[in-house]
């Protein structure tokens, strides 16, 4: 069965420091991977997906099939990055919404 693991429940970093959220997955095929984010008092929303190879709000994520990882990185954390981050895996192309989510990582950026 597919599984997404986010080993850190809480990540506390100082403003301006680099931040890396770990995500590992188990799936034997070619997955589509996503990072979703929920800011305080806002709805869960897509941050980025690996097929787009984009950088959103300074965040990037690289799919490493050898290590089955999709870690999210930002070189300089900002206070507005404080949020709950979820890594998610889609193993089907018939619906982009059928996702397997990790348990999430709470990021707290302190000044």
């Amino acid at each position, binding site marked *: 069965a597919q599984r997404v693991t*986010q080993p850190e429940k809480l990540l506390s970093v100082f403003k301006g420091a680099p931040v890396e959220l770990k995500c590992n997955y188990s799936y034997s095929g070619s997955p589509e991977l996503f990072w979703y984010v929920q800011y305080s008092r806002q709805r869960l929303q897509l941050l980025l*997906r690996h097929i787009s190879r984009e950088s959103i709000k300074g965040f990037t994520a690289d799919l490493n099939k050898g290590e089955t990882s999709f870690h999210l990185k930002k070189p300089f954390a900002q206070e507005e990055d404080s949020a709950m981050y979820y890594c998610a895996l889609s193993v089907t192309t018939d619906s982009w919404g059928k*996702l397997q*989510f990790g348990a999430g990582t709470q990021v707290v950026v302190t000044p």
Partner: protein
Amino acid sequence: SQTIHQWPATLVQPVGSPLSLECTVEGTSNPNLYWYRQAAGRGLQLLFYSVGIGQISSEVPQNLSASRPQDRQFILSSKKLLLSDSGFYLCAWSVEGEKLFFGSGTQLSVL
């Protein structure tokens, strides 16, 4: 623009009582619709998804059911709630090849 409405925001129900959570989408046609649940300390789990009126797929065996009586309406129901049905329920929609858009969620407490 597209919007998704989900209600109620919070609900406290006794064990054995029925449940009906409703979700409606505006500003799009023939969306894929989803119900996710988040139990305490765990990631979001896909419960049901629908690609059209009357078409429901269940992802996990459970005490709940879903219906789609209209193109942009998705209902989550139970005839008799169990304690284990407590959790945070999220409705979401997507159009093929696009990202998931989430509702604001319903916190259900079964006592």
